């Protein structure tokens, strides 16, 4: 499957996500997180946090809006009908809490072709309102030959 590498290195404009208290509770319920830090405001404050704490994998919520434009960029050229999410890595910094404003930029890190399949790797960098990097994600999608 021939791939075009001309989009490698492209960075997309930052997308900003405002973290809400009830969204943290809804997400925590959906993934089965029972730690009171994600549900009980008083427990979070007693533990020294300003507000409810987002589970680490809440990155799926605040980073995803930034991924869309990269995945759908015609120059990246992903064939969605044959795409699967193959690998994922996250490296976290300070915890995200309700009230944070998270800005995420996405870069096309690598596009390669192996064994008739296209590998598309994106890197997301999410930064809070204090310019602290809260999460760096490496997203790998594989497109099988049509």
């Amino acid at each position, binding site marked *: 499957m021939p791939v075009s590498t001309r989009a490698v290195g492209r960075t997309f404009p930052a997308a900003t996500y405002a973290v809400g208290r009830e969204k943290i509770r809804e997400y925590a319920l959906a993934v089965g997180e029972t*730690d009171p*830090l994600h549900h009980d405001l008083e427990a979070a404050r007693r533990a020294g946090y300003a507000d409810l704490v987002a589970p680490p994998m809440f990155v799926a919520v605040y980073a995803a809006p930034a991924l869309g434009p990269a995945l759908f960029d015609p120059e990246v050229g992903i064939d969605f009908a044959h795409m699967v999410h193959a690998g994922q890595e996250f490296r976290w910094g300070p915890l995200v809490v309700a009230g944070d404003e998270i800005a995420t930029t996405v870069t096309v890190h690598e596009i390669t072709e192996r064994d008739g399949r296209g590998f598309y790797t994106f890197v997301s960098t999410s930064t809070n309102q204090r310019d602290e990097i809260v999460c760096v994600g490496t997203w790998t999608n594989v497109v099988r030959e049509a």
Partner: protein
Amino acid sequence: MSALQPGEPLPELVVTPDKLLPVRYAGASGDFNPIHVDEEFARAVGLPGRILHGLWTMAQVARAHTEAAGGPATLRSLAVQFRGMGLPEQEITVTGTVRTVEDGIATVDAVATQADRPIVRDAVAELDLR
């Protein structure tokens, strides 16, 4: 955490997503890819039905680690490979083994299986135990 010593198993996490879990997770995460929420669409593209989101399953792997290590602040990194597909209404088990503990950082290898098939494999987490 005394359990997190090199060579020791990660406490097992067992979870059975209910029938509508992918729909609830779609709402919670914002990922409404129809293979997760539309039974007819999923079957039309050759799937057995609505399948679980990979990042939901990865969140179970993350939870196995943070519950073992003492909370969300312990998880420094997590890398996984997705294999096969996860289905609702079937038990998922996350198992793992502590590879090393150095300078208060535990490195843990884990896998998530469903019906004896790995759906997340080669999971590697770094946990800050300090």
